[in-house]
């Protein structure tokens, strides 16, 4: 009996499982795994690690655009094969690192990277690449683009990426909505909506699970309503804080607006436990226009904060350490940024952010 022919493709059973990383490691990393003694930085963009065994590895770090075409990745692989030793490592900020086991390979590797347009730097007390999100290129809820903001920022900060001239390391992030996928950073650029969502009542009943949307609102401003005879939702606009939390579960509640989705600047986030405990960042500016394609207003504020920090902070002070020393009034004075009433917290637990002392710098 012959098998009936069918167009159904052969089902391949997926192989579930997560790889160990040993086969992806530079041989010197395998040989000295867990046995490193110290490191130093011979020049910006280069790390030199020394093992208890006496082995040495030089790492050269270069910036990338994160969203890379395969030609770019292949070019980086060519450089890794021809000028390094065939292994690379990516940092959390999308920098690529090449490892070599001889010091004389460092200079030609740097020259080749720079020749191909990849800046070498991002180590130590530099401004590293921006940790960022997807934006208009791919996200379903973005208020702005990510790659474009980052490109315009890093063009301006190119020299600071390549030098180690900041008081301490500077981490940046950008995020296209208040969910803040870009994460905590010394300076972060984040969308801040300023108008409540515009509701397409025709679509709500078909697209949204209404109780879920009601439950998602942090200030209980959303309630079910019958609009034009159709089940929908309404927003108490006096209560609405324009956070956009209702938009992902209910796309007909459009929060993004070309004019009223603004950009805010936050400073002083630090995840390291070094010196003080980790800190969350604080909003210091808002209302900046979403001015694609190069966001000059945002870059002016970020550049100003960085210049002020660079000139005024002491060695090893992260942005948050610097502000701890000089105080918030002088931060606003030195940067010239206006301290508006919107920067005084009134969310839950906010009294802990008020100055309950006579500690005032005159």
């Amino acid at each position, binding site marked *: 009996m012959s098998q009936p022919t069918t167009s159904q493709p052969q089902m391949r059973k997926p192989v579930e499982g997560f790889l160990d990383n040993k086969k992806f490691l530079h041989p010197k990393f395998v040989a000295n795994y867990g046995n490193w003694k110290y490191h130093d930085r011979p020049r910006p963009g280069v790390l030199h690690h020394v093992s208890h065994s006496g082995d040495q590895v030089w790492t050269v770090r270069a910036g990338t655009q994160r969203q890379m075409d395969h030609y770019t990745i292949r070019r980086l692989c060519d450089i890794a094969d021809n000028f390094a030793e065939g*292994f690379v490592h990516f940092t959390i900020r999308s920098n690529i690192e090449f490892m070599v086991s001889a010091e004389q390979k460092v200079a030609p590797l740097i020259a080749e990277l720079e020749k191909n347009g990849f800046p070498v730097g991002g180590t130590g007390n530099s401004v590293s690449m921006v940790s960022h999100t997807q934006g208009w290129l791919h996200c379903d809820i973005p208020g702005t683009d990510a790659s474009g903001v980052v490109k315009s920022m890093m063009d301006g900060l190119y020299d600071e990426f390549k030098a180690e001239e900041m008081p301490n390391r500077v981490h940046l992030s950008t995020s296209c909505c208040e969910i803040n996928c870009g994460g905590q950073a010394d300076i972060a650029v984040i969308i801040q909506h300023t108008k409540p969502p515009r509701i397409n009542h025709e679509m709500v009943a078909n697209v949204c699970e209404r109780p879920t949307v009601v439950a998602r609102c942090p200030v209980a401003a959303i309630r079910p309503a019958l609009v034009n005879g159709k089940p929908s939702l309404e927003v108490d606009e006096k209560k609405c804080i324009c956070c956009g939390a209702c938009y992902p579960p209910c796309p007909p509640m459009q929060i993004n607006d070309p004019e009223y989705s603004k950009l805010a600047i936050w400073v002083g986030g630090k995840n390291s436990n070094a010196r003080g405990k980790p800190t969350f960042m604080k909003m210091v500016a808002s209302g900046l226009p979403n001015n694609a394609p190069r966001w000059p207003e945002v870059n002016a504020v970020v550049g100003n904060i960085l210049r002020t920090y660079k000139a005024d902070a002491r060695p090893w002070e992260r942005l948050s350490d610097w502000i701890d020393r000089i105080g918030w009034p002088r931060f606003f004075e030195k940067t010239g940024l206006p301290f508006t009433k919107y920067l005084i917290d009134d969310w839950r637990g906010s009294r802990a952010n008020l100055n309950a002392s006579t500690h005032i710098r005159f």
Partner: protein
Amino acid sequence: MAKPMHPTPNLDQLESGPWPSFVTGLKRLAKDKDYVVDVLGHLEHSYQTRKGYWKGGTVGVRGYGGGVIPRFTEIKDDAGQPVFKDAAEFHTIRIMPPPGMHYDTATLRQMCDVWEKYGSGLIALHGQTGDIMFQGCTTENVQPAWDEFNKMGFDMGGAGPSVRTGMSCVGAARCEQSCYDEAKAHTMVVNRFLDDIHRPALPYKFKFKFSGCPNDCMNSIQRSDMAIIGTWRDNMRTDEALAKKWFAKHGMNELVNDVVSRCPTKAIQIKEIKDVRKTGSISSVALNDTQALEIDNKDCVRCMHCINVMTGALATGVDKGATILIGGKRTLKIGDLMGTVAVPFFKLQNDEDYENLVELGQTIIDFFAENALEHERTGEMIERIGLVNFLEGIGLEIDANMVNSPRMNPYVNTLGWDEEVAKINAKKAAA
């Protein structure tokens, strides 16, 4: 040769300037792919109107409930047809990278081959959760592309209300500050939760991040539900040759201003060598013939600052493990939450210790699955039910390292006080 390009006056402005340009990369891809010609047109439309135009949907691969991020265009003409028809679908496949994001070039080239063949050719290294993001694929090509990645040995990352792809730092492979085998812990944990990663069934997402020391390069305390941050219990190690070398180069002013005075608990003092204390909690190292640094390890909070400044001269101890913090997340919906201490010191030395770490993760996820509300993260659940209830639920003992300070209000019924004291005393007596 692909079809002619759409005009992209906004995006063109992102090709100037010294930083590598993603637009230039997209244009390279567009030379051969109609798909990317329309992706550029789509993105330019966003730049012109300052809005996004992708909506979600349902696209997946056989056997999995997540890992593909579906995107369908919302830019339609009057007849409801996509304006950029070749880019009507722009899905992303999330693939888990090797722990620590280490690669050999052959692997990267093979990934490029697959994505050149089946996708847009655009790859993000890496997404914020820690996945390799293969960006831009039609519904039809998702399955064959996934099959190729899977045949290479790679597996799908998490999406939706599931355990997510983990992240670990460069770690023991290259860093002297590593306090445990991050990649080993990462691999073992992910392999336990594959089902929870691939078939979303939790109240909301759950993230693990692995940092080898308190510098926390993976930003685990702010971004993961379970942060495993390396630390040590014994005294800091010192190296006299490296300390003297550092001091000769940097001098007393930098030592005082950058090291001693920046110690958050004032655990470091400069002393005459003859005056250095000899008690069990002291680490010391000579700086020159007469002076030494003296560190009282009982006062040290393992912040890493002095070790960062004087690498090798000062180093972590050897009785290593991790501090485990639970409940970190960003804003929505109750506000930012840091992970807070659930286990002050979790020994990570032998295989059994790592197995115990996986079991702790399992216990916490089981409790989360049973007790969290829909769309509630672990930190929000703890805020709602209180840390003590959470700890009792997962069977962990309370510890004074879990708080900044004891309670500052009287609003608690302490009727069970004597009973608790008796339990603590009984435990002390048994120890």
